[in-house]
C-alpha cells in the first residue's frame, strides 16, 4: 500500500510508578484495516490502546493521525497534549468503545447516541435524530431508545455504546475488550455487530480475548507480551505458525 496510514503509533512507551508497561510499541493502521491486539492480562494491550487518544499519557512516543502528528509536551515524567484543541479534534474522529460501556446514566439510549454529534459536532438536531435512530436500528436496539442505560442488559448497553461511537462518524474505532464485562451468552450479540462493522470496511483496532473472532475478522493480528510486540502478522500466520514460542503457548492455552 502506498497510501499513508490512517493512524500510526511510533515507539510508544508507558511507565507506571516504577513498572514499564509498554516498552516501545509501533503500529500502523491503514484505512479498512481491522487489527486485533492479543495478549495475556498485564501485557499492556489496554494501556497501549488508551495511549492512542491520550486517555493515558504515554511516557514516550509519537502518535500520527491522518499524517498529522499529535503535539505532545512533557508533563512530569509523561507526555501530555500540547494543544488541547488538536487533541479534542482528533478524539472526535477516533471512536473508543470501553470494556464497561460507560454510557451516561442520566440520559436515555437515544440521548446517549445523539449527545456527541449534536453537542460536540453541533449538527442539526433532526438530522442527528434520524441518524441515531438508524444506528440504533443497525445495532438492533431501536425499540429501547427511550429507556435508560441501567434498564438494559450488558450486551444491549455495549451495543448502544457502539452506536454512540458510530454517531460521531469516526475514521478509526478503538475497542478496549468490548466483551470482557459481559455474560457469555451476551458476547455473541456484540461480536455480531462488530463483525458487521468490519465487513463494512471500517478501520478498527480491537483489544480482545475472543480468539476465534480475532482470527475470523482481522486483517492483522498483534500479540503483545510484557510490553513489546512479540508476534505480528496475518491471522493465519499468527494463529497457525507463529515464530514466537510465547505466542504459541498463549494461543494453545486460550484457543
Amino acid at each position, binding site marked *: 500500500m502506498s497510501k499513508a496510514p490512517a493512524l500510526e503509533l511510533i515507539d510508544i512507551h508507558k511507565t507506571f510508578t516504577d513498572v514499564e508497561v509498554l516498552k516501545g510499541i509501533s503500529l500502523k493502521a491503514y484505512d479498512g484495516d481491522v487489527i486485533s491486539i492479543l495478549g495475556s492480562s498485564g501485557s499492556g494491550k489496554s494501556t497501549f490502546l488508551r495511549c492512542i487518544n491520550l486517555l493515558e499519557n504515554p511516557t514516550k512516543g509519537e502518535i500520527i493521525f491522518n499524517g498529522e502528528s499529535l503535539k505532545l509536551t512533557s508533563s512530569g515524567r509523561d507526555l501530555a497534549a500540547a494543544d488541547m484543541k488538536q487533541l479534542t479534534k482528533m478524539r472526535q474522529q477516533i471512536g*473508543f468503545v470501553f470494556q464497561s460501556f*460507560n*454510557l*451516561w*446514566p*442520566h440520559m436515555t439510549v437515544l440521548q446517549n447516541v445523539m449527545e*456527541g454529534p449534536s453537542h460536540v459536532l453541533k449538527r442539526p438536531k433532526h438530522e442527528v435524530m434520524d441518524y441515531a435512530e438508524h444506528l440504533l436500528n443497525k445495532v438492533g436496539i431501536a425499540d429501547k431508545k427511550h429507556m*435508560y*442505560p441501567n434498564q438494559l442488559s450488558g450486551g444491549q448497553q455495549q451495543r448502544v455504546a457502539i452506536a454512540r461511537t458510530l454517531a460521531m462518524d469516526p475514521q478509526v474505532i478503538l475497542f478496549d475488550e468490548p466483551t470482557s464485562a459481559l455474560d457469555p451468552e451476551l458476547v455473541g450479540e456484540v461480536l455480531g455487530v462488530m463483525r458487521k462493522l468490519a465487513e463494512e470496511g471500517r478501520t478498527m483496532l480491537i483489544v480482545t480475548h475472543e480468539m476465534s473472532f480475532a482470527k475470523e475478522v482481522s486483517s492483522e493480528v498483534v500479540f503483545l507480551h510484557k510490553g513489546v510486540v512479540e508476534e505480528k502478522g496475518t491471522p493465519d500466520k499468527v494463529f497457525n505458525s507463529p515464530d514466537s514460542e510465547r505466542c504459541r503457548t498463549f494461543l494453545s492455552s486460550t484457543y
Partner: protein
Amino acid sequence: MDFSVVVEYFPRLLEGAWVSVQLVALSVVLGALVALPIALARISQNWWIKGFPYAYIFFFRGTPLLVQIFLVYYGASQFDVVRESFLWPILREPYWCAIIAFTLNTSAYTAEIFRGAIQAIPEGEVEACKVVGMTKAQMYRRVLLPRAFGIVLPAYGNEIILMLKGSALASTITILDLTGMARTIIARTYTPIEIFLAAGGIYLAISMVIIAIFRQVEKRQNRYLGTVSIKVPDKG
C-alpha cells in the same frame, strides 16, 4: 400547663416561622450560587486555584455559626469604611447580616457536598466525554453537573434542614424569627414549655415539608437509576 396561650399566640409564631423560612430559603439559594464556583475551584489540580476555596471552607466549617453571625453583625460596623460605604444600609440591618452569615456558612458546606458529588461520578463516564472530544466546559455542562445534581440531593436536603435549625441563631441579633418570636412571647406570658413546644412543633413541620420535597425531586431525578432508591431518614 395552659395551652390556650399557644392558640392565642399561634399567629405570631407563624409570623416568626415565615421569617425563618425566608432566612433559610434566601441563604440556601444564594449559598448554592456561591458554592458552585468554590466547588469547581476546589477540584482544580492547581494550587493557586484551589488554595482560596480550601481556606474558605476550612474557616467556615471550622468556626461556630454564632461567631460568624456576630462577626458580620457586630464586626462589620467597627470599620468606618463599611459604615460610609454603599453597603451600610444593608449591613446595618440584622436581617441582612443573618442572611450574609448564613449564606457564607452554608456555601462552605454546600461546596464540599458539590465537590464530593462531582468526584463521585465514575471515571468511566468522564472518559466517555473525553473520547467524543468534549471540551472541559461541555463536559461539565452536559454530563458532570447534571449527574452531580442527582448524587447531591440526599446530602443537600440534609444541609437545608441543618440550616433551618441553625437559623434559630438569628434570634441572637434581634431578629424575630420563630425562636426569637417564641422568646418574645415567653417574656410576656411566662409559659416557656407551651410556647417552646409549639415552636418545636412548627420547626418539625417545616422539616417534614423539606424532606417530602426532596424525596419527590430525588425520585424524579434518580428514576434512571432503576432499582436503586435512596432512603432519607424519617425523623423529621
